[in-house]
């Protein structure tokens, strides 16, 4: 590597920075005014790539391309306005967690819509008319289109900056970003302001996507990749700060460029391929920034938003009826292998359900009583699965060792990531946990020599006597029962109370000597270890493990399971996970468009049944008892 090549990569990195900036600026703007983290922002970008490519292919030539870019931006802006009016308006006052989930449901629905319209194949657009050449920079060829991107990023930043500083609309946006209550007081039409901000943000995402068409094909995978990049940029730059977004986009693009240009270097005699670090690097930058400046480089401390969730009922010991049901479930589990003689599939489904129960209960432990809304719980499930799988693959270990390694690796990961996570709260915590899960996923995908890359690890089979399905089922049932009861017991012990105390009022908890961070950290680690057990069992149940099974989708599944059952009840995650796992197995397998179906379920939950199944039943009972 020479200084020249380094410089060249740095210049080229600025082109990537512009693309990142468009998405992140829109995301940041929307968050600043509406306080909603729009996870579907990457989907808007993806739609931008598809729409622009379609238009450019249809109407060839300069007008088709450049006109298409502008038309696409306008269309996506319009689409954003529709989303805001139809969906988001209903959830501005909902708890943060529900807002995140609702926009995630949009991601699923939009992705399936794109699959339906454009099919699964990538769509390659034409190259930009007039900018197909290259210029010589530092002895290398830099595409003119990249030069164009390098210029347009700061240009849009300037335009946005002027618009925010000089116009009435801009003043309102800034006022709303700084103090939301004030906007209401100013007598402004808040609905119109929110809709137009959302439209503007969407337009920027559409523009970013449209401009990308000349460089990369439109692909269904773009949405999640782009949104996680954009999150990192917004969090690093500071939520609500446009200039911060550009700064962060540059930093991250440059760090990536640096990793690529270093390539393989040897550190202390060991060859290390830095270009593999690209995915992880941005999350490392984010982690560092969040620790040093928890509100981002140019962000301000956000005014704490009132949580609008209904307050929780005090924890009461299980009534006799619940204990009876619990005993019944245990007996039924013990007898299931008998039933399986005629219906062998029951065991397969049963194992799936049990593992999801254990996984969801562990997430609920930190999410409900701990108030930590982790969007990356799959990380610990994955660490458990890989902990077991790697031991089998590299040391030919038998299952008992694998099942011990699983929670240990997950625990270590949760201790490390949790240490950072408990320093934040709300959306920042959600984003950081998501980022950590992405790191785990990237390592599993990119460190092929160790993990088998995207093929994963095969041949992780249980050892005798558990190589018989029914025995494995019983083992799973026993461990799940143990895990669920352990977590439940902890919630009734001082530790669980301390965790809830920290959630209810950090101020009061600290004022009676509770070290809230430490309590939440330990809680996070315990939940991680339990999720690790579920992951380890999962690997042995399937006989294999691959990055696909530990991706962001699994984190979201866990969230949905917890909410489906009801976050404010202890039995909620158990019921939610069971229902969800069965649904997934029966309904979702029937259709290619299971994502959209899942999205619809999430939206129904958020809009219609915020208390979940168990919570809803409890309310119903209260209403019947006390008319």
């Amino acid at each position, binding site marked *: 590597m020479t200084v020249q090549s380094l410089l060249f990569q740095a210049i080229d990195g600025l082109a990537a920075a512009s693309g990142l900036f468009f998405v992140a600026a829109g995301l940041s703007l929307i968050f600043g005014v509406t306080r909603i983290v729009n996870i579907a922002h990457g989907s808007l970008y993806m739609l931008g790539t598809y729409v622009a490519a379609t238009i450019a292919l249809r109407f060839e030539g300069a007008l088709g391309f450049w006109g298409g870019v502008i038309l696409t931006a306008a269309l996506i802006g319009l689409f954003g306005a529709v989303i805001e009016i139809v969906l988001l308006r209903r959830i501005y006052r909902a708890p943060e967690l529900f807002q995140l989930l609702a926009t995630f449901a949009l991601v699923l629905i939009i992705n399936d819509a794109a699959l339906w319209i454009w099919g699964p194949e990538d769509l390659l657009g034409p190259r930009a008319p007039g900018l197909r050449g290259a210029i010589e920079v530092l002895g290398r060829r830099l595409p003119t289109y990249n030069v164009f991107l390098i210029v347009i990023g700061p240009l849009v930043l300037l335009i946005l900056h002027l618009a925010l500083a000089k116009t009435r609309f801009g003043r309102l946006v800034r006022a709303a970003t700084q103090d939301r209550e004030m906007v209401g007081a100013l007598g402004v039409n808040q609905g119109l302001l929110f809709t137009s901000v959302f439209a503007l943000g969407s337009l920027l995402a559409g523009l970013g996507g449209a401009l990308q068409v000349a460089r990369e094909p439109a692909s269904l995978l773009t949405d999640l990749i782009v949104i996680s990049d954009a999150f990192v940029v917004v969090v690093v730059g500071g939520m609500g700060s446009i200039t911060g977004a550009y700064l962060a986009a540059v930093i991250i693009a440059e760090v990536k460029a640096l990793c690529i240009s270093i390539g393989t270097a040897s550190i202390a005699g060991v060859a290390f391929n830095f270009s593999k670090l690209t995915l992880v690097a941005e999350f490392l930058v984010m982690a560092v920034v969040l620790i040093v400046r928890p509100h981002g480089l140019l962000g301000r401390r956000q005014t704490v938003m009132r949580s609008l969730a209904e307050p929780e009922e005090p924890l009461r010991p299980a009534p006799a009826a619940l204990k009876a049901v619990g005993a019944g479930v245990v007996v039924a589990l013990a007898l299931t292998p008998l039933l399986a003689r005629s219906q062998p599939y029951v065991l397969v489904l049963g194992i799936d359900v049990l593992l999801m129960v254990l996984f969801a209960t562990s997430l609920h432990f930190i999410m409900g009583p701990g108030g930590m809304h982790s969007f990356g719980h799959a990380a610990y499930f994955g660490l458990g699965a890989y902990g077991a799988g790697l031991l089998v693959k590299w040391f030919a270990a038998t299952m008992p060792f694998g099942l011990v390694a699983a929670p240990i690796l997950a625990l270590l990961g949760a201790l490390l990531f949790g240490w950072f996570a408990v320093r934040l709260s709300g959306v920042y915590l959600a984003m950081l946990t998501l980022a950590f899960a992405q790191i785990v996923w990237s390592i599993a995908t990119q460190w092929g020599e160790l993990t088998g890359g995207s093929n994963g690890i095969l041949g992780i089979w249980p050892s005798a006597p558990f190589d018989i399905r029914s025995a494995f089922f019983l083992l799973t049932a026993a461990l799940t029962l143990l895990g669920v009861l352990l977590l439940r017991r902890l919630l*009734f012990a001082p530790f669980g109370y301390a965790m809830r105390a920290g959630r*209810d009022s950090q101020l009061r908890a600290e*004022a009676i*000597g509770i070290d809230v961070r430490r309590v939440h950290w330990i809680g996070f680690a315990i939940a991680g270890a339990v999720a690790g057990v579920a992951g380890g069992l999962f690997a042995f149940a399937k006989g294999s493990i691959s990055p696909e099974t530990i991706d962001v989708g699994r984190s979201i599944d866990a969230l949905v399971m917890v909410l489906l059952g009801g976050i404010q009840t202890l039995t909620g995650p158990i019921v939610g996970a069971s229902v969800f796992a069965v649904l997934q197995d029966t309904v979702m397998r029937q259709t290619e468009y299971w994502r959209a179906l899942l999205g619809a379920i999430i939206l129904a939950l958020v809009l219609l049944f915020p208390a979940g199944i168990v919570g809803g039943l409890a309310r119903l009972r209260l209403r019947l008892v006390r008319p």
Partner: protein
Amino acid sequence: MNTLEIANLSKSFGGVRAVDAVTFAVRPGEFLALIGPNGAGKSTCFNMINGQLAPDSGSIRFADREIAGLPSRMIWQLGVGRTFQVAATFVSMTVVENVQLALLSHAGEIFRGWRPVARRHRERALELLGEVGMREAAERASRELAYGDIKRLEFAIALASAPKLLLMDEPTAGMAPRERTDLITLVKRLVVERGISVLFTEHSMDVVFAFADRIIVLARGKLIADGDAKAVRENALVQQVYFGTGKSFERKRELLP
């Protein structure tokens, strides 16, 4: 030796000097009122003493130890209890559980043991609730309580750790006059019995003049008077701060909440 000694304590927010070189002391067993108009810096003083905020400069000595800048849970461990201007309790717990948790923490048992909270320190918690007149409400969810009862619960929580010094930020805010006097009478009786020193803020002059052993007055972050009820009432500076002109305190009484 004084229970608490504060010297040259200062804190600014942006350009605002919320607390400006304040010096005073709390004597053992004293019932000391800190008064001043809205925004004078009273709560900020409290927040620095209990460790919620780190002071910009100055010293806070408690039990012969410099405590400025320590985290609030350590200051609590040393024996400083606190109630908040906007009462803070654990809303997802019952009344008695709130107190039990404080007792558990005081006993250093947060990380210890499997035994459910329900059966731990329960007798003592009920006893404390009885003392503040809340025994009947023990099993209710604390979020259902009326505001006055929340203040009582907070007081019980603060007593649970047997503090040497109690900081009470507007213990009677939002209460009817009658209820107000009842609560302060109760507070004073209980702290005198236990020998606890109290520093409290209060907007009701009736309460202050009737109960405080001594009064210190804060205005725009500066300490402007220190003395007994009579001295403070007659202090020209205090009268000026409260009324701008120099009329008597009696009118103000009706104006304040």
